[in-house]
């Protein structure tokens, strides 16, 4: 369905990624946010606090991230599209509730504007070192979706995509920005509402006495109901059966967590978004995401000027990881070069998917600034030998 025009700030804007993310959320239909201030993410909710009362919704600043990350889920079950925004230390605090969202299949968006870590780290400077945490940060077996924008425009467009995927798959979606993308100011074009597709809540149409909160009818994603509609359903973080009742047996556990995993893996083709360039004749492929992809582009251009056959694969969807695409590429390229603002996180996934069929080179960076294109170029040259 089309976006609600009340939330769409149609026009050409000159805003930073944080602000664009807020507008994306509003355009996607988000009418609730619970937040807690943390640099460099705070502007997202500051803008939301200012905008949402003029659109029709609620913002509340909670007392900590533990609260914010569950308050938004209460709002989802109360009928809203909701999200929260944070950075490293807050992301860590939110992990239990990301797991709760995955377990209860609560559609929502968690924005992480990554900064230097670990611990308090570098509050005002970039890193991309929460990528593994986005996938594995909570305990237990579960799958999430993670998207990585590399510009303020993408902070707008992909936030809408994040909400849409959350609703389609009833899963928490991690929106992995970084401090540079969040604080860089660029042109952002917001189209008219009728040009924006939003996915509505997957609401059940079953009569009250037939509704199974976690029943699936062959489709792996159950239909949802909201509190106050007469369904009188139960939601729990305990391992549960199709009625939503706790059922703590190995059989129920197996069925449940496999379905939680399968619904994402089966949907990979609808979830995976990649930007590809010159892969057909590439010998070396640079795999990157977020702000690093823009630095990498410069390195790729320089390498091509030198006559090297370098392709680009940008991870817009980082999780689920595009195993298939990387594996297929590995059949015919010599090497992968993976620059990241961390000491080597997504490169491990690349190497795993490559499975020895080609070489994999990491271009790590501890964070605090972006790579110099030369750093990446040097490794591309080495990989081409």
């Amino acid at each position, binding site marked *: 369905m089309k976006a609600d025009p*009340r939330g769409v700030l149609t026009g050409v804007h000159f805003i930073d990624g944080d602000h664009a993310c807020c507008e994306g959320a509003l355009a996607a*239909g988000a*009418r*609730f946010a*619970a937040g807690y201030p943390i640099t460099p993410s705070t502007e997202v909710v500051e803008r939301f606090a200012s905008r949402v*009362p*003029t*659109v*029709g*919704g*609620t913002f*509340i600043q*909670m*007392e*900590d991230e*533990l*609260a*914010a990350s*569950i*308050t*938004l*889920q*209460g*709002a*989802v*079950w*109360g*009928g*809203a*599209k*909701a999200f929260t925004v944070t950075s490293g230390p807050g992301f860590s605090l939110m992990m*239990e*509730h990301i797991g*709760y969202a995955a377990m209860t299949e609560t559609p929502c968006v968690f924005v992480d504007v990554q900064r230097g870590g670990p611990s308090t780290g570098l509050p005002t400077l970039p890193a991309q070192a929460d990528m593994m945490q986005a996938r594995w940060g909570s305990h237990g077996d579960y799958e999430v979706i993670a998207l990585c924008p590399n510009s303020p425009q993408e902070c707008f467009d992909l936030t809408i995509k994040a909400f849409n995927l959350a609703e389609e798959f009833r899963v928490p979606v991690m929106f992995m920005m970084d401090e540079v993308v969040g604080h860089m100011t660029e042109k952002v074009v917001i189209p008219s509402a009728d040009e924006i597709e939003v996915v*509505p*809540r997957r609401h059940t149409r079953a009569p009250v006495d037939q509704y199974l909160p976690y029943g699936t009818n062959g489709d792996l994603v159950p239909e949802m109901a*909201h*509190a*106050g*509609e*007469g*369904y*009188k*359903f*139960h*939601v*729990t*973080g*305990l391992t549960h059966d199709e009625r939503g*009742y*706790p059922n703590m047996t190995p059989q129920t556990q197996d069925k449940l967590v496999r379905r939680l995993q399968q619904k994402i893996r089966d949907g990979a083709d609808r979830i995976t978004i990649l930007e590809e360039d010159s892969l057909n004749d590439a010998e070396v492929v640079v795999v990157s995401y977020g702000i690093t992809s823009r630095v990498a582009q410069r390195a790729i251009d320089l390498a091509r000027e030198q006559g090297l056959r370098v392709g680009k694969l940008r991870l817009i969807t980082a999780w689920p990881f595009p195993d298939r695409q990387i594996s297929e590429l590995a059949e015919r390229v010599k090497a992968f070069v993976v620059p990241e603002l961390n000491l080597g996180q997504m490169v491990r996934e690349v190497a795993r998917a490559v499975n020895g069929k080609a070489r994999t080179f990491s271009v790590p960076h501890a964070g605090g600034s972006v790579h110099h294109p030369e750093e990446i170029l040097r490794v591309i040259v080495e990989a081409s030998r």
Partner: protein
Amino acid sequence: MSDLVNPVEQFLRTDRMPHIWCPGCGIGTTVNCFARALIESKIDLDSLALVSGIGCTGRVAGYVKLDSFHTTHGRAIPFATGLKLANPKLNVVVYSGDGDLSAIGGNHLIHAARRNIDLKVICVNNLIYAMTGGQTAPTTPDHAITSTSPYGTCEPAFNLPHLVEAAGAVYVARWTTFHVRQLARSIAEAFRKKGFSFIEVISPCPTLYQRRNKLGDGLETMQYYKEKSKVKHGAPTSEVGLTMTGEIIVGKFVDRDRPDYQTMLRTQLAASLGERFVEQTETVCS
């Protein structure tokens, strides 16, 4: 309504009976009182949502036939806040235990009271972390034996009515599981109240707290409640602290009025924004 059926049955997920609570545990008793309050208040059950945390009392959510949410340890109150803010028409009850609400959940307890979020909080206080085997809670009386204080606790216990009153709650009452009629009445009163309402119910944990401290079984504990409780409506909450075998002051301690969070928010936004203020619509996410 048929007299032949126990009035609590209509609120129970009978397909989940029997429940997991021990013989002599008082949680089930509080559920009866809750059921009575629902009947007496004639509350539309479709508009009622119940949120619990983790612990023995937290299991109440799974046994009641309502829109119920069994959330994470200590976070029932913020979850309930989100529910209420997204759909102000809901009547939101938080039903959880003393450890869940005042230890790990303590921060959320005081902030929700400060904000005066329109929630009805039923805190079943059995003075212990029961579900996990009887560890010390912030409400465990001094010198009690628990599994994590095998030589006796040396911490003063929280006086919960005092804490929530200081934080800003508009309705504060305490009863024990002996005071079934008064408890039902208090819960019904809380339903009529707008704002953060807190009802503490002192309840036996015969398997862990009472047993380890040689205080008898459930029945003997109830007899202690009957004998040593004193009803003092309006008592200063600073004076209602509990000890292991001493007097238990019960009653309605606080019943005051101040605008609830959503009323204040709306008023403020409307005043600041004037015509630009847009009310949150009902179906916020179609």
